[in-house]
């Protein structure tokens, strides 16, 4: 384990920035935190969650794929893929780090999504342990340990320094380039013990997931409770766009007048044209769209991925849904607790 004092953090960031684009969570004037490219003067926010999740780095909201240009009878085709500069993300929380391995299962299995893969290979994740979890946090429900997050390097914020520990080969390689001061784990161990006591008191920390999973498909799909659960859903895309594991996208063509730009952008199962096909739309009302989102995370995803749920318990949908409907209320209602 190595450490870097708060005073020296800027020079560390400077050093990282020589070879990499460095992104850190910073507070904006709306009082919320966003990942932004680090430059002198930018400080790391202590907020738990950024508004948008860290999935943006590997799976951005929109990305150009290819363009077609008409020239007489010729069509010029250009691959719009951009070269990605190696980058480092500092301060990613345990829930968001876990979301990467969930997205990997989707984008890195055959057929491999080369756009995602290119970014994934160029990115180094420095995670940051949580110390003051929120009432809306429930990552522990899904077996995530926010005191010892995954990532290439994991970090803890101490009283006057950050502690860093290499986890993967990529992480250790970066750490060895930075030549930081070796130290012991005393403060880190004390912090972990303290945070674990708080985790035990989280109101949503131990949600029961026994009623969900791939084998519960029919009974959950047919539940009569979806009607009342989806009743006041506005059909906006907030939950899906702030969610670190939502991965559906649409491919659109933009007509430029003399050609076409083809791009992909996030889609939302909450939208009326989601999975609209030539024959029409299989999900005609908000009930079916709403059900899709939760069935995907709690039933379909585990069915295809050895029981792993498609939720990391970050709590963003709890904080951001305009009508305060969310996966926790859905789970509790389907189980008959609400």
């Amino acid at each position: 384990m190595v450490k870097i004092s708060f005073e020296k953090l800027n020079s560390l960031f400077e050093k990282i920035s020589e070879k990499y684009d460095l992104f850190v969570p910073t507070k904006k004037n709306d009082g919320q935190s966003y990942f932004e490219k680090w430059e002198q003067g930018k400080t790391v926010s202590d907020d738990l969650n950024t508004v948008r999740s860290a999935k943006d780095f590997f799976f951005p909201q929109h990305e150009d794929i290819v363009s077609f240009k008409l020239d007489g009878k010729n069509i010029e085709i250009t691959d719009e893929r951009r070269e990605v500069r190696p980058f480092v993300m500092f301060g990613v929380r345990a829930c968001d780090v876990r979301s990467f391995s969930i997205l990997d299962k989707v984008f890195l299995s055959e057929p491999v999504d080369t756009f995602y893969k290119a970014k994934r290979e160029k990115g180094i994740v420095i995670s940051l342990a949580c110390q003051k979890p929120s009432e809306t946090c429930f990552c522990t429900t899904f077996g995530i340990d926010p005191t010892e997050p995954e990532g290439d390097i994991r970090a803890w914020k101490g009283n006057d320094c950050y502690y860093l520990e290499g986890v993967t080969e990529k992480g250790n390689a970066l750490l060895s380039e930075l030549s930081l001061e070796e130290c012991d784990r005393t403060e880190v161990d004390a912090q972990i013990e303290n945070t674990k006591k708080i985790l035990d008191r989280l109101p949503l920390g131990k949600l029961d997931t026994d009623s969900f999973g791939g084998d519960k498909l029919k009974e959950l799909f047919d539940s009569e409770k979806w009607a009342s659960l989806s009743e006041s859903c506005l059909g906006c895309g907030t939950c899906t766009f702030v969610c670190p594991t939502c991965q559906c996208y649409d491919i659109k063509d933009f007509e430029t007048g003399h050609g076409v730009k083809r791009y992909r952008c996030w889609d939302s199962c909450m939208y009326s044209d989601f999975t609209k096909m030539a024959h029409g739309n299989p999900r005609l009302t908000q009930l079916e769209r709403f059900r899709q989102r939760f069935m995907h995370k709690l039933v379909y995803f585990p069915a295809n991925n050895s029981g792993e749920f498609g939720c990391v318990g970050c709590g963003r949908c709890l904080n951001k849904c305009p009508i305060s409907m969310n996966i926790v209320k859905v789970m509790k209602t389907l189980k008959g607790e609400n």
Partner: protein
Amino acid sequence: MQEVMKNKAKELLASGEVRAVIGWKKGEFCYDITPAVFTNAEEIDNGFIYDDFCGANLSKYLIKEAHKDGKVLVFLKPCDTYSFNQLLSEHRINREKVYVVGVSCDGKVDIEKIKRTVGDGIIALSSDGDKISVETLYDKYEINRADALAERCVNCKSKKHVAYDELLGDEGEVLDSKRFDEVEMIENMTADERFEFWRNELSRCIRCNACRNVCPACSCEKCIFDNDNSGYVNKAPVTSFEENMFHIIRAFHVAGRCTDCGECSRVCPQGIPLHLLNRKFIKDINTLYGDYQAGEDPEARGPLTSYTEKDPEPSVVTDKE
């Protein structure tokens, strides 16, 4: 107040006068309230709530609910009744199928403001007059209720219900609010500063459509931005032009119809002060066409949808700087 409302709801459900009640349902915590349709006394007893966090405007749900058989009871706060009237004047709600119970409102509290003061981990909240006591996983706090009020309530335009069948609690007055102060501040910026202000705000837009979907004035059955055949469908704000365009078109479309209920800003996950765009239009309409409050009178003809010889010429806009 909450108990009186619950009894009223149960009474009208029991007598068969209404088949359903649109109200607010309590959540997991003390602040995460969901609009809900209640159909029996048991549901009312178990979940109905009316407190500081019932900010959601329920009027838009009537478009769907008042299309069903039977009558529906809806609880509306003063500002919600303006939206209700506006929807009536646009023939979006069948008035005969709705029983409106007006409820008084002391302003609603914005949980985001509280979180910014006390931090994360709120596990208990209680309101006592001017003070709100908050208990988090880490500490206890007492904050002034006035400091936690939602922006739209700080600048409340009216405590008066402009539509109801029955009123619970006291009736209030139309207020002399300071809601145009911030608009004036933006008007006084230079064009470049103003552009920078709005770019800074709108650049955060993720096009989740929450502002549009919650807006009682946005009641088109098929929005142009959802219509594949329109040529304007864009699910992501791919360029700054698109970020701006969506909000500018929306502001134009609701101009003269927006009651300034403030739901757009309440629901924006990115904290964009969208209400300021609408207020600019309201202020300009007041100046150019005479004072007009959308939703005040369902029979009134809107300034932008009626013609008079005194209407300003287009030059009031085109001749400006």
